[in-house]
């Protein structure tokens, strides 16, 4: 098989019949997902829908009640170390040792991912991310957005084949948000695939090839943003919330309901 064919046909990530429970609470209910090579995939859902729980299962941070996760066809449970070297992760709430400076943190994680970085390369990376001036500061002294940018820098430090981003643009200013979108696109072009969660429908529509909407742990629908609108625009629930042309947000609210989650 040529590289191109493989790209088109095979999946980088497969989530099969995933169920996650915390005690008696079912957070993810029999979810199936497939992400193809070179795809940017968005996971949408209201607060508490189970997005982070799905990501945590893929990252092997939590043990699902049942189901299977395969990355490049490799089961993550049996080969967690190997798989962890292949994925880049940005957690919804990331924290680094508060005593370390930004530069020391970058050096630590470069080492953990087996990446050799000279001081000059580290500074270049920090410069690109716009936090070079902060390089000598401890993590806790950065602004929220700067912390987020560092977390994203660490997530891609080893050029992962699969990038898992949990609300990557929350807390970012519009400039940084656009920069991140460009980066994501760039990562895709150089062979990576991305799974991200977001609450921004604009973001989902702009950057994602396909999106899935989940609620109460269940996958409600999954397709390209355009097809999703096509598919659900005549749904009575969607019609009720739409003003004029149906948008992705109308579909989202129509399918997941208008009430606010706790």
């Amino acid at each position: 098989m040529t590289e191109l064919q493989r790209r088109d046909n095979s999946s980088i990530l497969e989530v099969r019949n995933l169920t996650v429970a915390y005690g008696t609470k079912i957070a993810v209910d029999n979810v199936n997902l497939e992400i193809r090579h070179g795809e940017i995939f968005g996971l949408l859902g209201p607060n508490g829908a189970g997005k982070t729980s799905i990501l945590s299962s893929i990252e092997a941070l939590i043990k699902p009640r049942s189901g299977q996760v395969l990355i490049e066809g490799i089961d993550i449970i049996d080969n967690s170390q190997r798989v962890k070297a292949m994925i880049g992760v940005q957690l919804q709430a990331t924290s680094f040792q508060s005593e370390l400076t930004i530069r020391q943190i970058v050096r630590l994680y470069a080492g953990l991912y087996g990446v050799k970085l000279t001081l000059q390369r580290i500074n270049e990376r920090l410069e690109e991310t716009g936090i070079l001036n902060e390089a000598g500061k401890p993590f806790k002294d950065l602004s929220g957005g700067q912390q987020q940018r560092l977390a994203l820098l660490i997530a891609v430090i080893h050029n992962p084949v699969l990038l898992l981003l949990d609300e990557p643009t929350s807390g970012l200013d519009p400039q940084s948000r656009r920069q991140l979108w460009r980066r994501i696109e760039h990562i895709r072009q150089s062979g990576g695939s991305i799974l991200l969660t977001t609450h921004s429908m604009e973001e989902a529509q702009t950057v994602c090839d396909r999106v899935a909407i989940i609620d109460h742990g269940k996958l409600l629908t999954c397709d390209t943003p355009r097809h999703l609108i096509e598919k659900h625009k005549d749904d009575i629930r969607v019609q009720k919330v739409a003003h004029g042309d149906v948008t992705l947000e109308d579909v989202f609210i129509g399918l997941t309901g208008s009430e606010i989650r706790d």
Partner: protein
Amino acid sequence: MTSYEQRMSPNSKVMFESLFKADILVLIKNRRSLVLGIILPLIILATTNGHKAQQRLGGSLLLVGLAITYGLMSTSMLGYALSIARDRDAGVFQRLRVTPAPTWMIMTSRLTIQAIANLIIALLVVIVGTSIYHLTLTLTQYAMVLAISILGGAMFLSIGQAMVGLLKSSETVNAAGRIVFAGLILLGLLGFSGVLGGTLESIATWSPVGTVMTLFSGVMNPSKWTGHDSLSLLVTFGYIACFASLGIRWFRWDTH
């Protein structure tokens, strides 16, 4: 093949070195715990020098042992346990756990640094203590004092580990650490001053501080090593096994 797929998994040596370096930096920045672990013993040495207390507490070498014990207790139970609990609260471990570094490596690096810090404390206190009291130790005695310090350090570390294993938030770990610390100090001091009688006395003797102190006193006279000393050694190992398994069995990387 893309360049991505040609990359190899990072090797364990590089991973451990990176973790270890970072943990050293953290320990140095967190001087407070290290300084406390050295200052506290020095205060004990300074305030007991030349006093009658020295006789009552069982002689100068035993005081050096007591000073070391308190130093080890403070760095392990207050310093180590609290830093683990805080990092866990903040989510530092979750970020480390999604890297290829195995979890045992993350913990081993931390524990190794702490063990080295303990050894430095013990060495410093022995050197200062013996010179204040004009003690001359044989090489064997030196070695034994250090060996017991390592053992005692391991025991207090395992108590610290048990605390972060059984307690969730860093606030509770902090509070419990202080209470246990104060309790053990009192038990140790009173136990060895002989003011306690009967049951309390024997609780003190077999408490974690008591067994270590018994071992230190055994060093003063290695030729007269008693069955009580051997039993204390055994009990110390028992404490380590018990607290360490509690601390590992119940440890959670995430408190949320």
